[in-house]
C-alpha cells in the first residue's frame, strides 16, 4: 500500500500534484524558517547600521531655490540664502524674500518666506543670512513660497554694516545689493502705494535712491506715522534691496532712520521758474485761481489736480491723487479756488512749459479765501480769442448731450443760453459729472466757472475744473 501524499502546508491529500491543488503551496521553492530568520536578522542589522551612519554623517542640505518646481509643492525643505527684501509685517505673520544665487536670474533664485507667529528678535532684515526650514508652496503659475511655523526653524546670521553713499550705490551696479548699508541723504519725494510708501532720498549731486517703507511697519509694529518731511536730512542704516533692477533701501525698523536736520528751501515766485531751476526743489506761494482735476483712463478716478496760482498763465502746480489723499481732511477741503497756499515742489518742464510738481511728504500753508474769474455776460463773445482764459458764466441749460466714453458713463455737453440769446457749450467730463450730487438739468439756470478750451471735437467749450465749479442757481 503506497503512502498518500499530503501537502506540507495545509495537510490535505495532493495525489502527487505540485503545487498543492488546495492551497497552492509549492514545496520545491520553500526554505526553512531558520534560514528566513537569519536573513531577517542580517537585513535588520544592515538597516540599523545604515540608519546610524546616515544620522551620524548627515548635515542640512539646503534645496537650491532655482530648482524648486511644482512637483515639490507641500514638501518640507531647507533653504539657505540672503534676505533680499522685507520684512513685510502682517497681522500675526511676517514675510520676506530670500535669494540664494542659484541662478543668474534673480527672480528664479528668490523665494518668498512667510513666517507665522514670529518671536521677538527673530525677524530678519535685508542683508541677513538665513537658513530656514519650512513647507513649500509651489503650485503652477504662482510664485513659490516657504512657510515657517516655528522660530527654531529659522537661523539668522546678522549682516555686517557697509558705510556707503547714494552715489556709490547708484554707480556700482549690483555689488552692494542685499547688503546692510549706512548712508546719508535728503528726502525729496514720496510715492504712496496701497501697501507701502516709497520715499526718494537724494544727495547733493542729484543722485537719487528709493527708500521703501512697508505700511505694516507703521500700522502693526510702530503704530505711528514715520513723520518724515520733504527736505529732511536723514541717516539711514538698513538693507539694500532692489526692485526691477533699481536699488531700493528697505526699512525694517524706525530706529534705522535718524532725522539729523532739515534743508532750507529757496523761495521763488511762481512766475519766475526758469531753466536754471529745473530739477530743484523750491517753495512757491500764491492764490489759487483755478483747480483742474485730470481724470484717469479706466474709471472715474482723478489722477491728478493742476493748481493755477495767481493767474492762469503762471506755471501750474501738479499734485497726484495719491499725495492729495495723504493730506489731512481739513487741508483737502481747503485746497480749492480762492485759498492762498504755500508749498514745496520740484521744477519740471512739461510739453515745453515749466511746471511745479508737488513733492511729498509736506503740510502746505493754506489760508481759506474766495476767488471768481471775470464774468462773461454775453456768451457770443466766448470765442477762440479767449482760449485758455478763465471765465464765470451764468445761463440756462437748453440742451444736455451725452458724449459716449466707451464702457464708462458718458461725458456731458450742456448748452447754456445767456440773457441775450447767445449760447455757449459747457463740457463736463464724466469723472466730474458722475460725482455731482445734483447735476444740472435742462431748464435750470447754472453758474459755471471754467476754462475756455476745446473738447470732443467742439472748438470752443467752457470746461469746469472740479465739481464745485458748477452750481445750480435755480
Amino acid at each position, binding site marked *: 500500500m503506497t503512502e498518500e501524499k499530503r501537502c506540507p502546508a495545509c*495537510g*490535505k491529500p495532493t495525489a502527487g500534484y505540485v503545487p498543492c491543488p*488546495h492551497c497552492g503551496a509549492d514545496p520545491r521553492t520553500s526554505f526553512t524558517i531558520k534560514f528566513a530568520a537569519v536573513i531577517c536578522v542580517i537585513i535588520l542589522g544592515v538597516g540599523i547600521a545604515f540608519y546610524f551612519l546616515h544620522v551620524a554623517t548627515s548635515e542640512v542640505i539646503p534645496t537650491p531655490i532655482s530648482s524648486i518646481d511644482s512637483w515639490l509643492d507641500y514638501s518640507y525643505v531647507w533653504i539657505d540664502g540672503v534676505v533680499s527684501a522685507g520684512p513685510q509685517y502682517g497681522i*500675526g505673520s511676517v514675510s520676506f524674500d530670500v535669494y540664494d544665487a542659484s541662478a543668474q536670474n534673480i527672480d528664479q533664485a528668490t523665494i518668498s518666506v512667510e513666517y507665522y507667529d514670529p518671536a521677538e528678535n527673530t525677524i530678519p532684515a535685508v542683508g541677513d543670512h538665513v537658513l530656514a526650514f519650512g513647507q513649500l508652496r509651489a*503650485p503652477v503659475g504662482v510664485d513659490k513660497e516657504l512657510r515657517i*511655523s*516655528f522660530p*527654531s526653524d529659522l537661523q539668522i546670521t546678522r549682516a555686517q554694516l557697509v558705510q556707503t553713499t547714494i552715489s556709490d550705490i547708484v554707480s556700482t551696479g549690483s555689488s552692494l545689493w542685499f547688503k546692510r548699508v549706512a548712508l546719508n541723504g535728503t528726502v525729496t519725494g514720496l510715492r504712496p502705494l*496701497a*501697501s507701502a510708501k516709497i520715499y526718494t532720498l537724494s544727495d547733493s549731486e542729484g543722485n537719487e535712491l528709493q527708500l521703501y517703507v512697508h*505700511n*505694516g511697519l*507703521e*500700522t*502693526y509694529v510702530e503704530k505711528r506715522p514715520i513723520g518724515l518731511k520733504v527736505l529732511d536730512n536723514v541717516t539711514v542704516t538698513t538693507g539694500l534691496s532692489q526692485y526691477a533692477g533699481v536699488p531700493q533701501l528697505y526699512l525694517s525698523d524706525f530706529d534705522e532712520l535718524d532725522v539729523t536736520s532739515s534743508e532750507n528751501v529757496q523761495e521763488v515766485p511762481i512766475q519766475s521758474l526758469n531753466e536754471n531751476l529745473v530739477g530743484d526743489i523750491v517753495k512757491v506761494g500764491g492764490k489759487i485761481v483755478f483747480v483742474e482735476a485730470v481724470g*484717469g483712463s*479706466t*474709471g*472715474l*478716478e482723478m489722477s491728478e489736480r493742476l493748481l493755477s496760482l495767481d493767474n492762469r498763465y503762471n506755471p501750474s502746480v501738479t499734485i497726484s491723487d495719491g499725495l492729495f489723499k495723504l493730506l489731512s*481732511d481739513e487741508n483737502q477741503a481747503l485746497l480749492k479756488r480762492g485759498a492762498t497756499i504755500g508749498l514745496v515742489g520740484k521744477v519740471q518742464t512739461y510739453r515745453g512749459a515749466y511746471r511745479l510738481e508737488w513733492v511729498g511728504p509736506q503740510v502746505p500753508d493754506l489760508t481759506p479765501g474766495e476767488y471768481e474769474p471775470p464774468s462773461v455776460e454775453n456768451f457770443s463773445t466766448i470765442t477762440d480769442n479767449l482760449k485758455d482764459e478763465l471765465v464765470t458764466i451764468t445761463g440756462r441749460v437748453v440742451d444736455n448731450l451725452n458724449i459716449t466714453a466707451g*464702457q*464708462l*458713463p458718458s461725458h456731458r455737453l450742456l448748452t447754456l443760453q445767456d440773457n441775450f440769446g447767445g449760447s455757449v457749450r459747457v463740457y463736463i467730463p*464724466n*469723472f466730474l459729472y*458722475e*460725482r*455731482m*450730487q445734483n447735476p444740472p438739468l435742462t431748464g435750470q439756470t447754472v453758474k459755471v466757472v471754467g476754462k475756455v478750451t476745446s473738447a470732443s471735437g467742439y472748438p470752443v467749450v467752457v470746461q469746469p475744473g472740479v465739481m464745485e465749479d458748477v452750481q445750480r442757481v435755480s
Partner: protein
Amino acid sequence: MRPAGRVEEVFCPKCKRYVGTLEKCPYCMAKVPKRLAFRLLKWGGLAVAVLGVLFLYIDVRGPHILAKNPYVISVGDTYKENAVTMNFGQVIMTGKATFVKYYDDMRSLGMFLTDLDNENQDIFIRAYDVTTFTLFDMEKTRLNENSPVPKFPAVGDNVTLRGNLRVRASAAQAGEFRMLYIQYPEAVLNIERQTDKTPVSIAQINANPDNFKLYQRIQIEGKIISTGDLGWAIPLNLYEMSTGAEASVMVPNILNQFGRTLTAKVGDLVRVKGAIQYYYGTPQIWLASWDDLEVIG
C-alpha cells in the same frame, strides 16, 4: 485529520471535494446547502452592518439616540495645555469668521474662525469638495428664494460648526496645529450675520475708524468710480456723493460660486452691506453674499 463541522456542509455532495464555506462547489458547480443558522449569521451580519452604518449616519445628524451631541468648546480651548487630548474629537464651536476662501486647486473651503473673546486665538476650518459644493448650492438656493438666513459663512459672521478637531502638539508647546474639518454641510449649524442696516457715512468711517469694530457689519451708499481685479476679489472704489469720501468695497471671488457674477459697473450708485476690515489701517468693506449689493441708481 477531519475538518471540524458536518462533513456534508464543507464537502461537495456531488464531487466530494472540500469547498469550505462556499455554497456553490467551485469544481462542479453543485449546490452545497448550509445550515439556516449559518446563513442567518452570514446575511444577518451584513444587514446589521449596513443598517448600523445607516443608523449612525442618521443619528449623528438628528435624533442623537446613540451618538450624543459633542462637547461645545470655544476656539480658545484649543490653546489650552491639555488641548491635544481632544485630538480627533467631535466638537461644536463658535467663532468669528475672519477669512473665507475657496481653494480652486483643492476644491475646498478654507476659513479662519477667531475666538469671540480673544482675537489672537484662531483655528483653521476646512471643508472638502462635496461639503463645499453642497454649501454653495444651499446659498444659491437661498439667494433665489430671497431667504434672509445665510447658508454660506462670510467674513464677519459668527459661525457655529460641528466637526472633527485636529490639535497636535509640537515641540514643548501644545496646540501648535489646530484645524477643524467639517464633514457634511449640515455641520454648519448656525451662521449669525449681523442684520443692523443703519446707514453709515463713508466719511464717518474714514474720519473715526476707531468708532467701528473690526468685522462690524455696516451699510454704506456710493457711486462706483473704479474697479479692479486682485485675483481673489474685485475691489470697488465707492465715492460718497454727499461728502466726497471714498471707500474700498471688496467683492470676494467666492461669491461667483453662488450662481451669479458682479453686474454693477462703474457709474452705478450702489447700496452695500458688509463687514469692516482694515488693510494697513485703511478700511475695507467685505461683502458676504450677493444680497449685500444693491444697485440703486
